[in-house]
Every structure is written in structure tokens, then in C-alpha cells.
């Protein structure tokens, strides 16, 4: 048993991934974490048994166990509101999944994705399926009054569709936007179903879910960090907690001079206390 070295100042940094191993009493025995791929020490990044999909961002890959988005399990992305750069973060992985011959399925996205924008990110529209759970009517039209579906029935439909897609193993990558306030048992069921699903599966939920426990092995909180940049904070992973959030540069929306000006204005606004005025270039 290794003695906890109290003088080690930065034990929990990504650089200290493999600390010096203390001398074992029997040098012929294998290390504990090499006995089985599911075992990992708390101060090391665990390995992932299933397939791993590189995210396309080298800095992020070093922080994720296995070196990329894990397959065969759920990953949670927690956002304050949709539209902070999450699709640009996932686009390289989605394009890779489509190029390997599988389809990407989106479940109840917050708005209809713009085909042209996704195509610009490298996503193939022929291999993209969007599934909505909301239905306007509950009966075959022409037979009496149609009852309006309530939110709970919609949530149940969405969870059923998600479970079917994961358990079938036919979808390549799955992105889902479940209703807020998802129960822990639903998450457990989806995590079980995801074990039959070879590709990555993402649940994009609200930031308030950060404080609730979840069965997903990987949880990231995303926050916007200026134009064309996103801050990724690792809430949960198979490995030591990441203290410093990562800042990633996304596929640009603004041109470089505009981005530089935006950064300058943001710096000025942070320095001054006056509200930002209208700044339109003619």
C-alpha cells in the first residue's frame, strides 16, 4: 500500500497521471490496475474497455479517459442553454462516425438544426436522423376529439425511443435532449441500454443537473468563454478530478479581425464598469 505523500504539491494535475509506483513485496505480481481493464486507481486516468472516438481536440482528448469520447456508455454534457458551441464541439466526432458508415440520430433537439450549417461543420445530412417525441394527436384522425399529449407522456415517449435506439445497436452516435428533471432510474436504464450501442451516446441536460447524481461515467459542464471558444469543466470521469477547466477553440463563426476586436472589447468591458454600447462596423 503506497503511503500518501503529503509533500507532493500538485498530485491532482493532468501531468501527474502516472506517479512513481512504490516497490511491491513480490516483484513478479502484476499491478492491480492491470489485472482487469475495468480497474483504475483514483489518481490515474482509467482506461475504457469499449471503442473510443477521438474528439478532434487534442487538449480534450488528454483529459478524457481512453483518449476520446467513450463508446458503449452514456456521456452527459451540461449546458446552461442550447447554443453555446456544443455542436461545434461534437461535430468532428459526428463526422468520423458517419464516415465509418453509421448514422447519427438526434432525439428531440431544442430547435430544428439548420442543414446548411451542419453540412458546413462536416456532418453528412444523408446519415442524420432527427426524432421528435411530441405528437399533436393521440388518435387516428377523423375519429372523435384528439386529446393533447401532456409533457410527461412526451418525456416517456422520448425515453422509450432513446432506449430502443441504444439497445438496437444500429445507430452510430446518439444525441438526446431529455426533459429537465430526469429521474436517476431512467438514467440507469439508458446506461444499461447503452452497453449494446457501439458508438458514443450523449445526453445534453441543464446545468442544474450537475448537483444530482447520475449513472453516466463521463459528465462535462460546458460554458461559453468568449466568441468561438468554449470552457469544458470535467464534473465526473474515471480518473482524478480536473481542477482547471479546459478552454477549447471551436470552428470559427467570426472572422479573425472581428474575433480580435471582440476580445478587446470584452477586456475593456471587464476593466471598465460602463455597459457595452452599440458597436457596429459600417
Amino acid at each position, binding site marked *: 500500500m503506497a503511503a500518501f505523500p503529503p509533500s507532493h504539491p500538485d498530485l491532482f494535475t493532468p501531468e501527474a497521471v502516472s506517479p512513481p509506483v512504490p516497490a511491491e513485496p513480490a516483484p513478479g505480481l502484476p499491478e492491480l490496475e492491470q489485472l482487469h481493464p475495468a480497474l483504475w486507481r483514483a489518481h490515474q486516468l482509467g482506461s475504457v474497455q469499449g471503442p473510443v472516438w477521438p474528439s*478532434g481536440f487534442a487538449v480534450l482528448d488528454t483529459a478524457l479517459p481512453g483518449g476520446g469520447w467513450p463508446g458503449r456508455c452514456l456521456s452527459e454534457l451540461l449546458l446552461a442553454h442550447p447554443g453555446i*458551441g456544443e455542436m461545434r464541439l461534437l461535430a468532428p466526432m459526428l463526422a468520423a462516425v458517419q464516415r465509418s458508415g453509421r*448514422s447519427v440520430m438526434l432525439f428531440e433537439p431544442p430547435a430544428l*438544426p439548420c442543414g446548411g450549417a451542419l453540412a458546413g461543420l462536416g456532418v453528412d445530412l444523408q446519415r442524420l436522423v432527427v426524432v421528435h417525441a411530441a*405528437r399533436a394527436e393521440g388518435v*387516428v384522425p377523423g375519429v372523435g376529439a384528439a386529446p393533447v399529449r401532456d409533457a410527461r407522456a412526451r418525456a416517456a415517449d422520448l425515453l422509450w*425511443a432513446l432506449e430502443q435506439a441504444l439497445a438496437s445497436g444500429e445507430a452510430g452516435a446518439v444525441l438526446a435532449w431529455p426533459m429537465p428533471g430526469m429521474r436517476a432510474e431512467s438514467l440507469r436504464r439508458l446506461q444499461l441500454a447503452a452497453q449494446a450501442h457501439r458508438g458514443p451516446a450523449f445526453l445534453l441536460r441543464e446545468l442544474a443537473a450537475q448537483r444530482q447524481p447520475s449513472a453516466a461515467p463521463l459528465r462535462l459542464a460546458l460554458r461559453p468563454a468568449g466568441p468561438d471558444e468554449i470552457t469544458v469543466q470535467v464534473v465526473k470521469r474515471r480518473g482524478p478530478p480536473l481542477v482547471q477547466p479546459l478552454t477549447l477553440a471551436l470552428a470559427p463563426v*467570426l472572422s479573425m479581425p*472581428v474575433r480580435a476586436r471582440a476580445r478587446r472589447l470584452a477586456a475593456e468591458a471587464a476593466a471598465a464598469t460602463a455597459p457595452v454600447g452599440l458597436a457596429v462596423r459600417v
Partner: protein
Amino acid sequence: MLWFAVHLPCLSLEAFGAGLDATARRRPVALLAEHRIAAADAAAAQAGVQPGLRRATALALAPDLLLGQADAARDRSALQAVVHAALTLTPAVAVQGHAVLLEVQASLRFFGGPATLLSRLRDTLAPLGHKVQIASAATAQGAALLAQWRGDLALGPHSTQPAALQALLDELPLGLLAAAREHAEALQGMGLHRLGDLHRLPRSGLARRFGKALLDEADRARGTRPDPRTWLAAPERFEDRLELPMRADRAEQVLHGAAVLLARLVAWARARQARVAAFVLALRHEVRHRGGEATPAETTLRIDLAEPSADAAHLQLLLRERLARLRLAAPTLELRLECSDSVVATTASGELFPDHRSAHTGLVRLVEQLRARLGDEQVRQLQPVADHRPERACTSVAVSARSLAMPATTVAPSDAVAAVATEVAGFASAWPQTRPVWLLPEPLPLAERGVMPLLDGRALLLLSGPERIETGWWDGGLVVRDYFVAQAADGSLVWVFRQRLPGSAELSQPIWFLQGRFA
């Protein structure tokens, strides 16, 4: 010639009981013909209900007896399904009474022998849920008689050797011959109980007393008289109806009867070597007047398959999902299943190891299942339209099997990701994106402070200069807008526009709108 005969001893009862659900099946069942019991199942017979009893007597013996009317048309439909099941093994199929006769000599080599053929026959008949007695012989009439007599004569020396067949037929009780039923008392009085007894008597005397029909039937069974049959074929269109003995108030109670009809549909499709592309289930209601309006007489459910299939389990799954979200307007009395869209084409051969073709089939099935439960319009694919107006450029269509792309080649995941990683590395110098990923379905009017737009009460910082979109004057959707990329207070990028020409000169009309968010 080798003939198989499939005798269905309880056909009428099973045809009647096909529409019953699980709770009703536990009750004893009997059928009435002209106010007398015509047939009773094992549970009713145990209670003492015999054919020939009057209705009141039977009900007194078994109070929870379920009575139904004997219906020859219903028996014919059930028998037709067995005929279709037999047509998958041989084209030479004929019907005699409640038995189906198959001439399988030409199919023996293909199916690998009589024993394998027999097991195939049993497997094909299993989904229809009938009790079958199978016998084989060298003559059609002989096989039919043996099947009616005993259930263990499926294969044996009598199947191929005429001497063994004759010896077995000699033991056959005379009551099984159709021509001997009217002379049953006379024959018993003479002490003629078996077919062998008949052969020992002079033929001219027998013909004079009982007519030629009895002798002809015996000769046909032995094989001394030719026995031509007309072969049956599967019809082009499938139509079958099933009357539910118990009124169904909820859609789930219809499920069992619908499953029986689907099994018959699959048997028909397999007999024609076709696959089902679409079918229609019609539920006939009892007409009621509720609240001054008449309920419709029929509810039709049309189920289109993205890829034609003859898989009973898959069709049942789709039908179950559709029935689960159907609310019946009135109780259902009768189900009718029709299929006129079938595809006669070769299927792709099955693969042992999963490849891209099987992955595509799997994806189509998943999409079909989602469409069956959620609705045909809920599973969509994006289809961009060449239009400058953002809300018209981003449209979606309901997905179908043809639109789901089949992968031409399979690239190994590592190569695919390596290719994309190099692409991402060049993002810093790539052209900037012009359109946001999330487009709001309706532009959201924004509050203003002075002339600046506000989002959630905080001012927006307009970054990228105006992009003027002015189009659509020809179809009534005139759009005159200046689009800006703006940064919200939390740092995310949004796409807003300012309407250049408000419709009227009112100052209260909003000018700034939020169109989308860059994700």
C-alpha cells in the same frame, strides 16, 4: 408419388377461438348449428357437453360455456391459411373436407428427404396454432383417411410401400369413409367394421347395396383407381376477416385477433414468395349514436413498411405500436386485414457476419419501429432548400428507406477519425460559419433599450456587420432584413436581425428579432 395429409380435427373450434383473448380462452367453448351443439372442446366435453345436445342442456351442464355459431366461411378462411402454409413446400396442394393434401414427391430432393420435409411442415404450421394430425401414403385418399384415423402415421413403411399401405388400410374403421356414413347402420348390421372386411366381399353385391361411391372411395384409397385433384394457388390479393366473439372496447383486446390475421398474411406472402409492402387493418364498430353524432362504422389503420418484409414478428411489433396509441371510438366487432401491396422480388441473401448492408437493414428496422410508435411525421431527415430566407432554407422531410443512405464503402474508424482530425486542425484558418446550427422556428422579437437589442434583459454586442437578405417578393414571403452576429452577455453567439422596413409606421412594432443561436 408421396402424399402428405394434414388433418385439422378441431378446425371449427380453433377458427372460432382465434379472436378470443387470454381470459376468454379459459372458458369451455362449444359451437352451435341449428340450435344443437355441433362441436365442443376438451374442457366442455369434460363437463359433459356432447354434440347433439340442445343449447339449454349444454348451458345447464357448463354454466360458463362460451357458445358460438358454426360458420363454414370462417372455417374456410382458417383452412386457407393452412393451404398457404403448405404452398411454401410444394405447388401441388389440394383440400378435402377439413384436411389439406400435399403431393411432395417433386420436393423431396430439394428439402432433403421426407423426415426433413415433415419437420419443415410442422414448423410452418406452428404459428397458425392448429392441432394437426399428419399422415403420409402413396395415394391421396389413403393419406387423408390415415390422417383422420390416427396421429402417429406421419412416416413409416406405409408411406412408400403399397403392401404396407394396404395392410394398414385394411384396419381402417369404415366410419371414416365419407360414402359409408349414410349406410352406417346397415354396415354395422352386416358386421362390416373395417375396410378389410369390405374387400373380402364380392364387388357387384356391394355396389348394388351401397352404391358405387363406397367402392370408388375404397379403390382410390388403395390406389387401384385414379384420383385426379385440382391444385390450389394463392390469390393475388389477400383479404381476410375475423369476427371477435367478445366485443373489444380497448385497442389491446384487438391485438390477439390481429396477430392471428397477421400470421395468415405472412403465410399467404410466403406462399406467393412475396414480401408485404403495406397492409390495412380495418376495425368495424357497432354503430352508435353518442351526443347527436354517429360514430364511424370503420376505423382503418394503414401501415406502410419502409422495406418490404415477410417477418411475422416485425409486422406484429409495428401493428402493436400503432394499436397502442389508438383510441377506439366504439367497441369493435370485426377485424378485416387487406393487403394488395406486395413485392415479388428476391431478397438480399443473409450474412453471417454483420456488414454495412445488415447495418443498413437494422437501421431501417429501428426507424420503422420509431415511426410506428411516435408517428410517421416524427422521424425526419434534414433537407436544405436553396433559398436565401433562413426559415425556408432549413426544412425537413419524413424519413423513408430510400432516403437513408447506404454506405458505399466501410472506412475503418481510426482512418475516418484521422482524416477528420487533420480537418479540425485546419479550422483556425478555415472559412467562418455563416449560419447558426439552431434556428428558432419563429423569429423571437427582442426588447430594445434605445436602439440596442436586449436578450434576457442584457444588451447584445453586435460584432459582425450587416448581412442584407432581401428576397421573396414573388411568393408573398417578403423578407427585408439586416442580419448581425451578436454576442450575448454570457459569451455565446446569436444571430439577430433588424427589419429594415416595418409593415406600418407604428413605433411599437418590434424591429429586432432573434433568429438563431450558433451552437
